[in-house]
C-alpha cells in the first residue's frame, strides 16, 4: 500500500490530467479490443461479427462498397474512434463517389491516427481535389510525398505527380472560366442513375445515350461493376421544344448484355453501338424506315479481342475513328482510325499518335462534320481531374495540340462523351454537376464566345456659348431725348391806359447770381416781344418803358420742364398816383421777413425808379394768402414791407418818400381756394402815392 502524501498526489493528478488532455487532442485510436469496452460484451460481439463481414466484402475482388458501408456504419456507431474503420469507411465512400462523406471519415481517421494507412493523405488529397479545394489537396500531396521512404516513393511518384498536375491545372482553369451556358436536359431524361455518352442527330431532334438503370433490357446487373447492364436509350424533342420522356428502343439495339451508344451518323440513319461481346466491340445498326435493323459488327480491322468502346465517322464516311485498348498503343485506351478502301472494306487500324494518345485513357472520340475538328476525352494531357474533354484539329497532316475545353465544361470529375451539333452551336456531354439528379447526367451546352462589349454613351459641353448662352448684349441702348428744355416767353407790351403798343426794354436776370443776362427790346410798332429762356436758371424779368412803372416777372426754370411757350401780354402802367406794381422778384424766407438774395435785382429796380423819379413817393405793402390767423398775417406782411423799405433807406432813398404797410389777407388779387391763387396773393407791391 502506497502512502501518498499531498505533494505526490498533486504531481500524479497533474500528470494524469496532462495525459488525458494530450490523448484527447491527438484523438485516441480505440482498437477493437474487448478490454476497451467493459460492460458492453454483447454489443462488442455483434460489432466484431459485422466488422468481419464487412471486411470480407471490402477485400473481395469486386467489392460492393455500398453493401460494405451499410454493415460498417453500425460498427462505427459502436466504436467511432477506430482509425482503421474510419479509413475503410472513407475509402468505401470514395469508391462510390460520395466524396463529402469520404472526407468526413478520412479526416476522422487522420485525427485518430495519421499513420493508420499509408494512403490516407493521398485519398484525402484526391477528395479535396474533387471538391475544388486545390490548395488543400496540394498541401497534402506534398506531405504524402515527404513521408514516403525512397522505395515506396517510386510506387507512388507518378500518381502523386499526376495529382499535383491536375490540381495546378484546376486552379488555372477555374480562374479563367469560359463563357458557356449549361443546361441539364431535365427530369424527363436524367435520373439518379448514370446517363452518359449522348449523341445528337444533325437536326437536334433526337438524342441517343447510354444508361445503367433498372429498365435495362433483361434487368441484369454486372457483378464485376455492381451496376446494371448498359442499355441504349433515346429522347425526342416534343412540340414545345423540351426533351421528351426517355424511351428504350429495345431489341435488336439492346440486348441483355452491355449495349451502349458510341456514335450516330450525321443523317441520323445509322447508330453505332457498343456491345459487350468479345471483349467489347462496335456494331452499327441501320434505321430502316422506323425500325432499327440488327446491329452488324464493323469488322475485324476495327473490332478485336480487346475492348473497343467508341466510334465516330468522318463527314464523308470514308474514315472511322474508334477507341481500343489493344496493346500496341500508348497505354490504356487509345484512339485509332481505319480508312475505307476502294473495295469498301475497312483498312487496318492506325493509332492517331502521341499528339492525341497518352499513357492514360483516351476515349469518346467525336469527329465534327466540318471535317477537321475532333473532340475526345482523356485522363491525360492537362486534365484537371478524371476525364476532361479536349478539342483538336487535323490540318495539313498534323494534329494540333489538344486544347482543354475549360471550366465549367470540364470539372474535377469525369467529363466525357462530348458531341457537338452540326451547326456548332450546341454541345452535349455527361457530367455530374451540382444540379445533377444523381450520378452522371446529360447536359446541353452552348458556347457564348468572347464577352460581347457593351457600348456606353456620353456627351460633353464643348462650346461655351452653346452651354451658357451668348453673353454679348446686341441690343441698342436708349436714345437721349434731347428735350428742348426751353421756355419761350412772348407777348405784346402795351400801355395799360391807352392800350397802344409800347416800346420797352426787357432785362433778363439770373436771380441766383443777380447778374443781368441780357437786355432785349420789343417791336416798337407791334409791341411784340419774345424772350427765350433755356432751362436751368431762375430768371427775373424786368420790363421798362419810359414814364412807366416797371414790370417784373419771375420765371423759375431750374427744373426741366421740356418745351413751353408762354404768352404773356404786358400792360405797363404809367406813373400815376394809385398805380400799383407787383414786385414778383421779391422773395422772403418762409414765415419770416428776411429778404432772400434773389430779391436783389428787384430791389435794384425799385432803387432805380426812386432815383429816376426823385419826387416819387411810394408805399410798399405786404400781402398774404388766408392761411393762418389774421394777426399773424398782418404782422408778417407788415414786417416784410418794412424790410423792403429799410433796404431802400439803406441804399440812400430818403425815408420820407417811403411808407410800408402790411395788409395781411385783406386784399387778395386771386382766389385763395387754389395753390396758384394763394401763391399770387402772397406778394409784395408798391403803390405810387405821389409823383
Amino acid at each position: 500500500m502506497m502512502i501518498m502524501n499531498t505533494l505526490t498526489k498533486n504531481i500524479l493528478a497533474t500528470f494524469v490530467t496532462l495525459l488525458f488532455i494530450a490523448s484527447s487532442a491527438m484523438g485516441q485510436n480505440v482498437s477493437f479490443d474487448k478490454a476497451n469496452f467493459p460492460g458492453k460484451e454483447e454489443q462488442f460481439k455483434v460489432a466484431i461479427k459485422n466488422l468481419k463481414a464487412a471486411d470480407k466484402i471490402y477485400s473481395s475482388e469486386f467489392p460492393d462498397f455500398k453493401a460494405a458501408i451499410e454493415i460498417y456504419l453500425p460498427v462505427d456507431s459502436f466504436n467511432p474512434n477506430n482509425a482503421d474503420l474510419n479509413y475503410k469507411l472513407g475509402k468505401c465512400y470514395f469508391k462510390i463517389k460520395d466524396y463529402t462523406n469520404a472526407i468526413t471519415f478520412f479526416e476522422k481517421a487522420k485525427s485518430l491516427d495519421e499513420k493508420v494507412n499509408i494512403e490516407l493523405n493521398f485519398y484525402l488529397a484526391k477528395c479535396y481535389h474533387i471538391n475544388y479545394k486545390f490548395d488543400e489537396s496540394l498541401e497534402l500531396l506534398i506531405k504524402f510525398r515527404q513521408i514516403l521512404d525512397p522505395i515506396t516513393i517510386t510506387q507512388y511518384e507518378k500518381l502523386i505527380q499526376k495529382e499535383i498536375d491536375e490540381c495546378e491545372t484546376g486552379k488555372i482553369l477555374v480562374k479563367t472560366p469560359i463563357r458557356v451556358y449549361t443546361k441539364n436536359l431535365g427530369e424527363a431524361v436524367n435520373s439518379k442513375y448514370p446517363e452518359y455518352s449522348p449523341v445528337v442527330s444533325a437536326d437536334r431532334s433526337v438524342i441517343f445515350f447510354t444508361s445503367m438503370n433498372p429498365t435495362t433490357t433483361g434487368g441484369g446487373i454486372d457483378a464485376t461493376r455492381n451496376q446494371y447492364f448498359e442499355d441504349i436509350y433515346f429522347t425526342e424533342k416534343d412540340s414545345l421544344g423540351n426533351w421528351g420522356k426517355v424511351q428504350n428502343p429495345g431489341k435488336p439495339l439492346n440486348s441483355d448484355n452491355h449495349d451502349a451508344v458510341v456514335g450516330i451518323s450525321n443523317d441520323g440513319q445509322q447508330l453505332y453501338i457498343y456491345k459487350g461481346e468479345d471483349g467489347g466491340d462496335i456494331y452499327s445498326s441501320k434505321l430502316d424506315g422506323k425500325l432499327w435493323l440488327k446491329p452488324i459488327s464493323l469488322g475485324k480491322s476495327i473490332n478485336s479481342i480487346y475492348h473497343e468502346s467508341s466510334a465516330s465517322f468522318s463527314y464523308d464516311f470514308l474514315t472511322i475513328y474508334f477507341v481500343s485498348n489493344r496493346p500496341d498503343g500508348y497505354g490504356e485506351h487509345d484512339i485509332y482510325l481505319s480508312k475505307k478502301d476502294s473495295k469498301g472494306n475497312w483498312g487496318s487500324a492506325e493509332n492517331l499518335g502521341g499528339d492525341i494518345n497518352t499513357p492514360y485513357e483516351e476515349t469518346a472520340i467525336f469527329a465534327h462534320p466540318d471535317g477537321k475538328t475532333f473532340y475526345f476525352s482523356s485522363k491525360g494531357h492537362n486534365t484537371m481531374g478524371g476525364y476532361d474533354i479536349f478539342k483538336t484539329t487535323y490540318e495539313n497532316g498534323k494534329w494540333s495540340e489538344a486544347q482543354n475545353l475549360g471550366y465549367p465544361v470540364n470539372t474535377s470529375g469525369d467529363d466525357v462523351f462530348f458531341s457537338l451539333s452540326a451547326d456548332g452551336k450546341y454541345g452535349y456531354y455527361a457530367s455530374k454537376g451540382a444540379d445533377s439528379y444523381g450520378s452522371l447526367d446529360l447536359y446541353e451546352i452552348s458556347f457564348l464566345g468572347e464577352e460581347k462589349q457593351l457600348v456606353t454613351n456620353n456627351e460633353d459641353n464643348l462650346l461655351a456659348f452653346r452651354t451658357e448662352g451668348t453673353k454679348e448684349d446686341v441690343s441698342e441702348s436708349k436714345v437721349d431725348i434731347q428735350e428742348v428744355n426751353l421756355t419761350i416767353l412772348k407777348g405784346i407790351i402795351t400801355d395799360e391806359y391807352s392800350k397802344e403798343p409800347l416800346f420797352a426794354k426787357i432785362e433778363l436776370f439770373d436771380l441766383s447770381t443777380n447778374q443781368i443776362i441780357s437786355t432785349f427790346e420789343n417791336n416798337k410798332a407791334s409791341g411784340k416781344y419774345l424772350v427765350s429762356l433755356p432751362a436751368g436758371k431762375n430768371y427775373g424779368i424786368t420790363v421798362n418803358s419810359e414814364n412807366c412803372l416797371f414790370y417784373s416777372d419771375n420765371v423759375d426754370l431750374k427744373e426741366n420742364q421740356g418745351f413751353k411757350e408762354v404768352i404773356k401780354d404786358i400792360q405797363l402802367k404809367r406813373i400815376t398816383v394809385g398805380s400799383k406794381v407787383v414786385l414778383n422778384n421779391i422773395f422772403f424766407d418762409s414765415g419770416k421777413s428776411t429778404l432772400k438774395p434773389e430779391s436783389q435785382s428787384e430791389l435794384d429796380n425799385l432803387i432805380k425808379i426812386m432815383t429816376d423819379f426823385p419826387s416819387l413817393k411810394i408805399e410798399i405793402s405786404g400781402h398774404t394768402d388766408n392761411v393762418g390767423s389774421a394777426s399773424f398775417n398782418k404782422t408778417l406782411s407788415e414786417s416784410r414791407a418794412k424790410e423792403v423799405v429799410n433796404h431802400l433807406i439803406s441804399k440812400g432813398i430818403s425815408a420820407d418818400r417811403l411808407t410800408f404797410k402790411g395788409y395781411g389777407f385783406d386784399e387778395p388779387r386771386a382766389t385763395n381756394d387754389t395753390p396758384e391763387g394763394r401763391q399770387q396773393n402772397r406778394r409784395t407791391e408798391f403803390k405810387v402815392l405821389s409823383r
Partner: protein
Amino acid sequence: MDTHSNKMNVMRKWIFTFILTILFFGIMAQENKPSEVLDTIKTVSAADNQTAEKIYNQGIVLFQQGKYDEAIAQFNEAIKIKPNFAKAYINRATSKVEQKKYAESISDYNMAIMLEPSAKSFFSRGLVRYQMKDYSGAISDFNSCIKANNSELKAPAYYYLGCVNFDQKNYDEAIKFYNSAIENKADYAYAFNDRGSAKKQLEQYQEALKDYRRAIQLNPQMAFTFNNMASVKKKIGDLEGAITDYSSAIELKPDYYIAYNNRGSVYLLKNEFDKALADFTKAIEINKDYAFAYNNRGNAKYKQKRYEDAIKDYDSAISIDENYGFAYLNRGISKEMLRDEEGSCADWKKAYSLGIETAHNYVQAQCK
C-alpha cells in the same frame, strides 16, 4: 467767387445770347409778317418733338422686362414714325431673337445694316445667321464686324468665327480664330475653353488640358469646363483625375446630369458598379428623359449579372428614343445571357438597321 470762370460764364452767355439775339432780331426783322414768327416757333417745336425716340426707349424698358411682344409693338410704332430709325430695327430684331423667331429677325437686321452699318449690327446678324446654320453668311458678318473695328466686339467676333469653324469640324481654323479672340481679350475664358475643345477634337490632349485649366483660372465657375477636362482625362486613362473633375463640375452645378452620367461611366470602367449605378440613377432623377443614362445604367446592371433589370433600363432608353441603336445592341447582349435567342437576334437586327456595325457581326455569327 472765381472771377475768371465768372467771366467765362458771362462770355459764354454773351455769345449765347448774341446768337439768340441775332436769331431773335432775325425773326423780329420780319415784322411785316408777324405770323411767320409764330409759325417758325411752332415748326421749331414740332421738329424738336422726339416721340419716336420716346416710344423706342419705352420699348427698351419692356424688352428688359422680358415683355417681348409689347416691346416689338413699341418698336413698330417708333419705326412707323421714323422709318429710318436703325436702332429701332435692331432692337426689334433682338426682341424676335429672344422669342427664337430667328428667320423673322433677319429682315430687320438687314434694314438696320442698310441704314447704319455698324459693328453691332453686323455682329447681331452674324449671330442669327449662325443660329440658322448659315455659316458662310455668319462668317461674312463677323468679318464685317471685325473690320468695323469696334473694340468691344472684336474679340467676340473672332470667338464666334472660331465656333462656326468648330461646328464645321475645321478645328485648326477654329483654333486660329480662338487665338485671335484671346489676343484681343486676354481673359477670354470662353475662348480658352473652346480652344481646348478644338484641341481635344484634334487629339492634342495635353494641350487641351492646358487650355481648359487656363479657362478655369479665369473663371472658376464654369462647370462645363471641369466636365470637358474630366472627359479628356478619361480618354487618356487618368480615371482618378476624371472622377475628381466630374465631381467638381457637379459641385458647381448640382443639376449637371451630363456630368453625373459621365462620372458613372468612369466608375463602370473601374468596375465599381454600385457607384456607377448611383450616378446614372442621379442623372435620371435630374432628367428623366436622359436616354444615355438609362442605357448606361443597363450596362452597369449587366455587369452585376442582373440581366432582367438591365433589359428594363434598355427598354426605358428605347421608349425615350426609338432610334437609339446602341440600346438595342446592349439589350440584345443581355437577352443572350437569358438564352432569349429570338429576342437578342431581333434586337441586333434592329441595331444594325440603325447603323451599328458590330450588331451585324453578331447577327451573322449567331442568328438565322
